[in-house]
């Protein structure tokens, strides 16, 4: 089975992200594979093992995003492709989905796995938009994937509980953390990844023009810093502490 894992590179979660002259800056914080997408790679590798398949990791981004693809290779992906084009500098979720859909069609796949959302934009709509564009079924927020010949069953984690969905392959799947802890890159994997030549595709390699940007940013804002001063509640006994704390909470008028 041929599996594609779609990943993105983002600033690390610990980065102090700021608005700097209308641009987003994260100082010297490292760029990493989107944490949600590590689960996508993990899910893809589980299916590779279950079906004796292959995993191709793909990523849209600048040249530096090869590092995120190398992480996927080090985890065990078989190949990686970077899609990079200056025309993609201003790209919204639908634009990303159009580029990914054409790359998926060019590569050919039985299963396309995404993380549920990215840490940066956080819209979480690209997987479903990619599914709609390719015409493949969308199986979102899967915590578990089982392939049986040409069909796939996933357990979706929804607000109301779990839903079991079945569809024919090829299918687009987004995964959540219940899929399993992402494996650590092995020593061999890291060596292999460091030597890997990652092909770079431009829009002309995909035979498409730059998608037009539907959602435009007018302004960036830094949220006002919250100065919370913690008030420690103490007392002679748990009952006394609880009594004082309950009064404080009631006085906040949040109940």
């Amino acid at each position, binding site marked *: 089975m041929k599996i594609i894992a779609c990943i993105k590179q983002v600033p690390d979660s610990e980065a102090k992200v700021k608005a700097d002259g209308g641009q987003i800056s994260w100082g010297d914080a490292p760029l990493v594979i989107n944490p949600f997408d590590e689960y996508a790679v993990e899910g893809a590798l589980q299916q590779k093992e279950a079906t004796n398949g292959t995993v191709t990791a793909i990523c849209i981004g600048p040249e530096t995003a090869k590092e995120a693809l190398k992480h996927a290779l080090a985890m065990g992906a078989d190949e990686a492709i970077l899609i990079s084009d200056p025309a993609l500098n201003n790209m919204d979720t639908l634009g990303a989905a159009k580029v990914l859909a054409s790359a998926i069609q060019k590569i050919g796949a039985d299963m396309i796995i995404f993380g549920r959302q990215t840490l940066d934009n956080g819209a979480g709509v690209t997987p*479903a938009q990619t599914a709609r564009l390719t015409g493949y079924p969308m199986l979102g927020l899967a915590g578990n994937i089982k392939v049986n010949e040409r069909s796939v069953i996933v357990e979706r984690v929804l607000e109301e509980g779990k839903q079991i969905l079945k569809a024919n392959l090829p299918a687009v799947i987004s995964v959540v953390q219940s899929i399993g802890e992402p494996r650590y890159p092995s020593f061999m994997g890291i060596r292999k990844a460091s030597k890997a030549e990652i092909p770079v595709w431009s829009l002309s390699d995909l035979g498409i023009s730059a998608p037009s940007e539907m959602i435009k940013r007018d302004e960036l804002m830094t949220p006002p810093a919250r100065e919370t001063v913690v008030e420690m509640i103490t007392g002679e006994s748990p009952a006394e502490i609880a009594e004082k704390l309950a009064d404080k909470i009631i006085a906040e008028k949040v109940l």
Partner: protein
Amino acid sequence: MKTLVYIDHFKGAVQPSSWEALGVAKKFGSAVAVVFGENANDVAKSAFEHGADEVFVADDSSLKDYLPETYASTLSALASTLNPNLILFPTTARTRELAAMCAVDLNTNVMTDLTGLEANGDSFVATRPIYEAKLFEKVNCVGKPVMATLRGRAFPKPNQETGKSGTITKVDAKGEAKSTVEGYSASESAVNLGDASIIVSGGRGVSNNPSLTPPAGLDEKQAEIWRAQQGFALVTDLAKVLGGAVGASRAAVDAGYIPYSHQVGQTGKVVAPDLYIANGISGAIQHLVGMRNAKVIVAINKDADAPIFKAARYGVVGDLFEIVPALTEAFKKKLGK
């Protein structure tokens, strides 16, 4: 200005932020509610009471269960006919997919998880968090119609006018299903952290009660999970007396103490309740990004140096197994429950 509002529900139980979306639509002009699926007529009645001017219902048997493809085709067809300026959704697992697909069909795009939305001539300016709410951006959608999902509890809930009614128009289901629902698992209780105004959470610390003796025959890991479940029972009791939802840190979820759907923070849910009580949660950055916008944060932890206290308004350094039950009792007494 005409706005379509998609009312998201599960077997007739409406996601409350659907009503908030109706309230926003009314502010701009006429609000047309759209309800699909099982029990759609009951939901439609409720939509009128929450401000809808008219309601379109599709309750064909093919729409009994939510499936993204059929719901999207039906909604896209309706939007093409009604030609609204704006389509609003509450932000839920279903609507992120549904809105995403409709945006493809209608050749526009969707602005998700908005905390603000203002009209600007015949266009709209939306405010939304990015980078885990470290920044906010103002965006506009140049496609037509403008589509947006609204963050739960970010907009006021309209007053309910009991008995208000109106015309319900039936529409046909469109599109072809690409998957089948094989069932639902009842093993997990419903968790709706996004709409909860009070969240009581537990972390790794809830398993750390040495005074408990697990039943015989459990191995070490099973005993740890058993202990954690006793701890989460205390957290749940407190949540119940406050009418809140139960949350958890990633550490607690990863350790197998509680299902993933309870997880607050990065790779889980980002929440902004009025009250957040963190029990036995140290406060890793990945958790803090998920809850630091709560109005009042209370932290109970035995480690006085735990980073969670830096985000908290009130803190207790102590044993949660003593403090939490005492707090539940104190609230029972004070709230007359």
